[in-house]
């Protein structure tokens, strides 16, 4: 056993100590037998020596000698028989214990595999089966708190406190920490099922705005309608959300994200329709991370994510930017087009996936991918690629009955006309399941007149909801 697996706990009697006791009992019994035989032998010799004084001593000496012989002969036979019986009884008892241990270990493992439970650190992104749990009494750190040699149903800490070892008896309620030795982040996910969504896109495409506006709608409108509860992972996440809500109310756009390795934004989704709870992870990194694929190396969450959310600023498409260039100069509204070409950010993400996450060049990613075209409120984009355009398309092609299908077709057509055929080909090759959406994360452009008006995002939650439902089927309920 490696030192890492040595726990500050008392080993279960049935995994080590029991065998030790058996071995010691057998050895000790053998020694006692040997000592008894020796004692009788010595007495026989002593009485034999006294035989000169009285012949009766010879009889006594013979009796003691026979007793010594009996102890050697019969004692050994009985010793072997009792030892065999002891081994058999203990073996049977241990077998029952091991069977119950295996069943419990298997149930715990199966529960975690079936519910896709793992621990993802929101800060360092380390993935592990379980976090490090702390003893509530002495705060000793316990890793691998599952049924094992330190206890089947409960583990006894060195301090004497009993810690639950399965999901059945409340392990998830213990205080926990990220198992990465360089990270001391508290993990309060309580063994909920993680749903991890990175928000991808270059700088100024509106990733943070989109994340908060869609989360706000999810929490304030969708969750009550579906009967979900959405508590935050901790006070820090709640404070971030509350600040974002206040800013949106006052027309203040979120500050530019500076972290190229993001800390996840987390909240739970609880419902009576499923157990365990879901915990959402949103990774909103600074768009600069997509300028250099080396920056993406720290994005370890690509290893375990559940879907992709690509936010596109239509004004990062050179053809479109050229079309609106004059209008943008004369318009009071602040568009702040992203300077990173859409294809560049997308290609870097693909290269990162291929290089660092064992996705082969020709391999298709089965995870869902939502492509969100943001800033649709600007100019006449709604008529060109938004819902007005989709309705027009459906009127022109009555055979297309599905609105979503029509929206995808309109977006693809427009992308082709804007010279993004290569992007569409890459998308087709790489993603098995993807959908286009159009939305406005702020609901308006910011100008001098309306700068303190409340933001009114629209159509922001649909992509997120589709992605969540595809990532975890329970969320469709």
């Amino acid at each position: 056993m490696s030192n890492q697996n040595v726990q500050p706990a008392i080993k279960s009697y049935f995994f080590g100590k029991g065998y030790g006791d058996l071995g010691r009992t057998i050895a000790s019994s053998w020694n006692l037998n040997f000592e008894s035989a020796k004692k009788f032998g010595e007495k026989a010799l002593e009485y034999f020596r006294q035989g000169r004084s009285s012949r009766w001593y010879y009889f006594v000496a013979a009796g003691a000698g026979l007793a010594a012989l009996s102890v050697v002969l019969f004692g050994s036979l009985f010793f072997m028989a009792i030892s065999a019986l002891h081994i058999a009884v203990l073996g049977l008892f241990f077998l029952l214990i091991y069977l119950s241990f295996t069943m419990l270990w298997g149930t715990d493992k199966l529960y975690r595999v079936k519910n896709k439970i793992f621990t993802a650190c929101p800060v360092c992104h380390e993935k592990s089966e379980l976090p490090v749990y702390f003893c509530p009494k002495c705060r000793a750190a316990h890793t691998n708190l599952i049924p094992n040699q330190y206890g089947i149903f409960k583990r006894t800490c060195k301090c004497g406190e009993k810690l639950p070892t399965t999901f059945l008896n409340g392990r998830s309620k213990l205080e926990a920490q990220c198992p990465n030795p360089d990270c001391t982040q508290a993990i309060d996910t309580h063994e909920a099922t993680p749903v991890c969504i990175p928000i991808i896109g270059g700088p100024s495409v509106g990733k943070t705005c989109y994340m908060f506006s869609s989360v706000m709608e999810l929490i304030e409108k969708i969750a009550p309608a579906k009967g979900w509860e959405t508590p935050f992972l901790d006070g820090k996440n709640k404070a971030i959300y509350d600040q974002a809500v206040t800013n949106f109310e006052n027309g203040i756009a979120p500050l530019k994200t500076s972290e190229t390795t993001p800390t996840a934004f987390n909240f739970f989704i609880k419902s009576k329709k499923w157990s365990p709870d879901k915990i959402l992870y949103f990774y909103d990194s600074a768009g600069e991370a997509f300028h250099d694929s080396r920056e993406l190396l720290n994005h370890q969450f690509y290893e375990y994510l559940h879907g992709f959310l690509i936010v596109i600023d239509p004004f990062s498409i050179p053809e479109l930017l050229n079309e609106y260039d004059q209008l943008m100069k004369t318009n009071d509204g602040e568009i702040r087009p992203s300077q990173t070409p859409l294809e560049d950010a997308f290609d870097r993400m693909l290269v990162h996936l291929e290089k660092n996450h064992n996705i082969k060049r020709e391999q298709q990613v089965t995870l869902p991918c939502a492509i969100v075209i943001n800033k649709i409120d600007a100019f006449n984009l709604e008529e060109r690629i938004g819902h007005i355009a989709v309705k027009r398309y459906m009127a022109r092609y009555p055979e297309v009955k599905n609105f979503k299908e029509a929206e995808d077709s309109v977006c693809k057509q427009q992308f082709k006309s804007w010279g993004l055929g290569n992007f569409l080909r890459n998308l087709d090759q790489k993603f098995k399941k993807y959908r286009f959406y159009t939305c406005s994360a702020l609901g308006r452009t910011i100008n001098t007149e309306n700068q303190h008006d409340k933001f009114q995002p629209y159509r922001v939650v649909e992509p997120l909801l589709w992605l969540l439902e595809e990532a975890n089927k329970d969320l469709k309920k």
Partner: protein
Amino acid sequence: MGYYYVEDTGDVMAKFMIYGLIVFAIVMAIYYMMLISLAIGALVGGGNAIYNYGVAFVRNVKPDRALRSSP
């Protein structure tokens, strides 16, 4: 005396039977003595072994140790 009578009659078979019975009785006596000796030996050796095993068990398998960590 019967002995002479037997001698006189020359009944070798009867003589043989008496000697045979004596030998048989001796063999049986030895056999039973051996059995008794073995039984005593087993009682002494076995009893001692059982006692020793019990002592070793009590010394080495402490119930409190077994219960310190619950399964």
